[in-house]
């Protein structure tokens, strides 16, 4: 299993890094965020932009970069099936999954596991 996981990561990581600047959180929600990776947000916000977004749509922390969530909102408008998934309340990040394959975690159901005290209002 370890070997298989390493092989999958060897494919997934360079591919998703190249296309989405993926950070390998291991619990991908790109389809709910207009294909803009929320882990690129310096505050790791999974549920929408912070209040610091600049008037030109750039990041509070990196003034020369577009806000990840401005891109997420625009991207979500263009998505046919998952358009409204941006309204879903995303559960807290499981930091134990950092660096693992989100593809494997999706198939195994591991990425859908929320803390026991978390009440789901609609998952990713």
């Amino acid at each position, binding site marked *: 299993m370890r070997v298989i996981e390493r092989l999958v990561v060897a494919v997934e990581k360079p591919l998703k890094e190249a296309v989405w600047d993926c950070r390998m959180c291991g619990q991908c929600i790109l389809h709910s965020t207009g294909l803009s990776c929320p882990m690129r947000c310096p505050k790791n916000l999974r549920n*929408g932009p912070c209040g610091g977004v600049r008037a030109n749509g750039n990041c509070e922390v990196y003034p020369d970069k577009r806000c990840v969530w401005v891109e997420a909102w625009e991207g979500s408008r263009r998505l046919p099936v998952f358009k409204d998934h941006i309204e879903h309340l995303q559960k807290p990040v499981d930091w134990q999954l950092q660096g693992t394959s989100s593809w494997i975690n999706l198939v195994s159901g591991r990425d859908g596991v929320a803390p026991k005290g978390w009440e789901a209002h609609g998952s990713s």
Partner: protein
Amino acid sequence: MAAPSRLAGLLRDGRFAVTAELTSTNSADPEATWRLAEVLRGSVDAVNCTDNTGAHVHMSSLAAAHLLVEKGIEPIMQLTVRDRNRLALQADLLGAAALGVRNIVLMSGDDVTAGDHPEARRIYDIDSMQLIEVAAGMRDRGVYLSGRKLEQAPSFFIGAVENPFAPPLEFRPIRLQKKVRAGADFIQTQLVFDVPIFTRFMSMVGDLGLTDKVFIIPSIGIPRSARGARYMREKVPGLHVPDAVVHRLEKTPPARQSQEGIEIAVELVKAVREIPGVAGVHLIGIKWEEGVLQVAEAAGLLPRPTVSPLATVGGSR
């Protein structure tokens, strides 16, 4: 069910609420906090204690809020996810409840790069939306995020924030809706200087049916000088100060600028009060508690309803 706080009681009764921000101190002497808070006593319904505002270190909001409870002034404890992970956040929430804090406002927080320790590690273990859900879980289901049971659940009045002026403007009401679904009872907004944009935001919020589900309290800033207004426009993340406001202060002689700032704030209070769904105002005199008093008076917000603070602050355990 008894209201968890005086603020909750007033809002649920349909009274127009007035809150204000307390300047965070840098003093180990509680008198410093009490002196500032005393200025606000009687002219507002509850007082926000900020959590390392602008990412500058100050006395903790938990300690400041407890100091207010001791003096019978109802606090609203702000808590950011910037400086604490999920363990520390829950620990502080429960501790706050035990110390008599009922109103909380949960937010992301200005980034560390905006503050006096830009080299600090930012935490953001969970986001503000998730913290609202966690606090609601502690209150409504009596459990920590882990699922472990609390011996006694806290009775919070849960607040959140929204910035109607930051892009993407069309997403902001939807984000607000997410916060309401997560458990927010009231919202304090970013400072409103631009009434037309705020009016449009409120109409979108109304279209989503949210004005019946959450109390929305716009923040009104009280600029003390043209220089202060320029600083807010240029240095404070997410703050939208129209040029007209800055120009108006610049045209005013320096000796009269603070008075002009009061007038600007009073006009803003009167304007937002007319907007459907606005449940109160949050007055922010930047390091200027006396300004809050003057605006409350001139805007006709005084006297505040007399509810015995003992009936709620620290009560209903």
